[in-house]
């Protein structure tokens, strides 16, 4: 008897608990958190924190959710996450457009910033390898880039595997004498670059603009066949490079406009240019701040910009 009563009580208590927080949470509309996506490169981390802090300042509850740079778009389309501040054409175009077309994700507009993601060499490499930035010239002096592991092929230091780049396939398609080694994290790229620059060793690695590197080390992108001009690229994208002046967009969940109208207005107005993005990553990667500190600094430095979003 007592056992049964207890069970019954437990079921009822469960019932009461279930209709608890979720049911009443809807009362003040903005109380549900706005979930901002964070990825694994510096400028995105800082700028998404900036956006989060601005929204928090407006009274919203903000949460940050870590996500992978490709997976995020499905999560945003489904409303599991709400806003992504940096979507790069070079690496995320396919997933972005697929999510907009198939799953109903919202394209929240492009930034002023012009982006490019490509193989990159420091300036001093040009002296050792004539004909750069053409990719065929690079291929001819592949041997100077070789390391113990890749000999006799040259080593290309590639981005983390989850960034959606297919450089091994490109190397195969263009029959280049290189081996693409993916690093586990972006920071390894800079560590490798620093080590090479210190001894002026030849290195070719993945880089992008806007980034803090351009302020620190002069260099150039390698010119692969331009996808805008070469027709074969449509059939086999591996034969070509990334777009030379790509977009940088924002991605948002379709329910934002209805649920958080004020925040949505701000999100649409957010607009970074190349120097603002590079500044954000400089604060962390060169000055050694934490993401939080860098975001605070960035906000303090750009009050006018932030005010302009709220109009």
């Amino acid at each position: 008897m007592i056992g049964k009563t207890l069970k019954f009580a437990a079921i009822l208590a469960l019932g009461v608990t279930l209709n608890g927080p979720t049911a009443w949470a809807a009362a003040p509309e903005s109380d549900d958190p706005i979930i901002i996506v964070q990825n694994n490169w510096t400028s995105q981390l800082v700028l998404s924190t900036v956006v989060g802090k601005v929204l928090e300042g407006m009274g919203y509850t903000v949460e940050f959710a870590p996500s992978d740079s490709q997976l995020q778009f499905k999560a945003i389309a489904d409303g599991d996450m709400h806003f992504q501040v940096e979507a790069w054409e070079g690496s995320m175009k396919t997933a972005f457009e697929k999510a907009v077309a198939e799953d109903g994700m919202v394209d929240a507009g492009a930034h002023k910033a012009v982006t490019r993601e490509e193989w990159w060499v420091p300036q001093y490499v040009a002296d050792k390898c004539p004909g750069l930035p053409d990719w065929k010239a690079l291929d001819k002096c592949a041997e100077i880039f070789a390391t113990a592991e890749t000999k006799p092929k040259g080593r290309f230091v590639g981005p983390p595997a989850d960034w959606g780049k297919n450089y091994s396939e490109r190397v195969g398609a263009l029959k280049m004498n290189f081996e693409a080694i993916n690093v586990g994290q972006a920071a390894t790229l800079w560590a490798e670059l620093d080590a090479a620059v210190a001894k002026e060793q030849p290195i070719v690695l993945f880089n992008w603009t806007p980034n803090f590197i351009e302020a620190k080390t002069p260099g150039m992108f390698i010119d692969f066949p331009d996808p805008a001009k070469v027709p074969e690229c449509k059939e086999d994208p591996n034969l070509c490079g990334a777009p030379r002046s790509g977009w940088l967009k924002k991605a948002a969940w379709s329910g934002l406009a209805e649920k958080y109208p004020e925040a949505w207005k701000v999100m649409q107005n957010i607009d970074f240019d190349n120097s603002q993005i590079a500044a954000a990553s400089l604060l962390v990667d060169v000055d050694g701040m934490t993401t939080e500190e860098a975001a605070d600094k960035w906000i303090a430095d750009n009050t006018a910009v932030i005010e302009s979003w709220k109009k």
Partner: protein
Amino acid sequence: MTVADPSLDRVKPNSNWLSSNGFAVQFVGAIVAASILSFVFSGLRIWPTELVVPVKEWISDFFRWLDKEATLGLFTVKDATRTVSWMLKQPLIWSEYLLWKGAKPFQFLPVFWLLAAAFSAFFVYRVRGARTATYVAFGILALVAIDGLPHILLSLSKAVRADPWLEASAFIGFSEWPGYLLDALTPGSKIKALPWVAVVAGFAIFAHWVGGWRLATLVALCMSYLALTGLWRESMKTFSLVVVAVPFSAILGLFLGVWVTRSKRAARVLTPMFDLMQATPHLAYLVPVVVMFGAGQVPALIATVIFAMPPMARCTILALQTVPADVIESGHMSGCTSRQMLWKVQLPASQKTLLMGLNQVIMQTLAMVVIASLVGAQGLGHKLLFSLQQLKLGYATMQGIAIVLMAVVLDRITQAYANRSTDYEHRDRSTALQQHIHLIIFGVVLFVLIVAAYFSRDVSVLSKKLLLIDNKDALELDKSIKQITFFLIDYVQPIRDWVTVYVLIPIRNFYQAMPWAVVLTGYAMAGYKLGGWRLSALLSGLFFFIVVLPGNWQFATTTFYYVSSALGVCLIIGLPLGVWSARSPTAAKIILAICDTLQTFPSFIYLLPAIMLFKVGELAIIFAIVPYAMVPAIRYTYLGLKLVPEVTSEAARMSGATAWQRLFKVELPIAVPEIMLGVNQTIMMALAMTAITALIGGSDLGQEIYRALPTSDAGRGVMAGLGIATLGIIVDRLINAWADGRKRDLGLI
């Protein structure tokens, strides 16, 4: 391969060399023949791309179909998965409120109603007696539950993203009124999450209850570290997932385990499933889970539950099978129904094994929660992942230590709980106050601290200036780690290059040139020899259909390369350590304690020292696998030597064997079956670890899983995961078959 060891047949008398080595000759012959054939037909070396069966695409299409179209009549599969997510989310909401989020007063309304029911019941009990009091309490709860039902349905329909089935017009909506009132009375205020001091104190008091002062001190120190380094909030985010995932996995595992012992059919289906679930690396679960459940806390929870459940089920099976027959008999004699038998006799009798299962569940959960940060779980894992990705090794060390300490706390507490002796005699003599002293103290402490938290912010979360170790220290640590590695690099770099060029690359080239047909022949022959044609067909079939046909052979060769190199190192270090600890009790104490500790670390952690020392590269990968996989090699060697019958060693000593002779001629040969089981475990753990090392590069099956994650390409991830599982299962079956046969020959079983 030890499989071809001619000593296998030595026990048979009267055989000449050729016939006793007949199998070895056949084996080598077949391998040579297969090698020659595969140089003639290149298709036997690498499965031709045009013949690859697009299993991966089929699986991806299947998941896409499940996600977009599949229906179960009334509702779609997606609705069902969303409903499951919604249900899992409810307890998560509460654990988050309590541990780190805090909530507005009206969000605690259910607590208000539960308290209201309890208080009115108490009041009525005083006036009218127990029966009426029960009715009153139930009445209140039932009314509130019915009144709130539309809200539940509305929230659910939002979760499945259907048009709201019901507008949230509660029947009367009275259950909300106290909420509005509370909200109006306390505008903008927030009930804080549990203060950190209270959580630390709670852990310490519990630790004292189960394990005395020593454990309590250890626990308090470890938990304080989390607060004093400013990682409290992140730790509680992780912990709120653990708190919900552990009961789910434990209960699910318990029921599946009971089911397996009750039904032969269930056993036939579930046991191989558990094998598969444990052999498949963590990361591979994430891909389908993400496709079905999206990203965020809840999918992380689901992946965690799936991964952490099998050990509990296994322990339950083991526990129920090892209940002494006389205990069951006495249960029968006192007329137990089968349900009473299970709950009142079998499970209590095997409590210890079950609690070990729970311990396993907790450790696996913690490991998985960290990995799940790849799909959006927040908390320590997320922070650690970011620090690793930005190579901020100072921060990463700080956060890594936090995860390890959390693991240590949970591990030690559950172990102490499992080993706690229940002193019934003492319990009978003590008063109610003595029995519940820990609970009462905790209640008082909790109350005081919650009140205190409203006067001082530092009680709920330490403010930055009070931190013992803060970001600046982490930055300093970062700098010193960089300096040390910069200093070490001059010494490490030549070693790294030498090992890479002269050891690793030859091994890699050897494996990468290995034709699949040769490996298949090897498996088939070994399987036939050890377990007859059925085992042979099973192993070669698994290998062919899951690894070769879907075109994963090339990735698998790299996996072979990592695992076998790591295995070599593990054995070179692990075997002597095992022998040493079997010889010297002092050494055993220290070495086994280190093993225990190594096993509590979530696998993620091992990446840290590896990339600090060797930078990104193949050596770092192998270096990260070794400490994780070495533990069983040491343990089983120790165990195997300890199991050698005393009389046998005695006999050897009597016949004048030196210590070395005794070890090599008597004890080791007898211990070999046990040691091989250790090797088996080492291989399984190395395989699991290869998936984690994908985070720092590589080109193996693990990397395939990792790459499948961003593209939500379920097929690619699943097939690569199954590939790793297959390689593991093959080794497992072969070694087990061999060890069984060998033990039989030695008369050990």
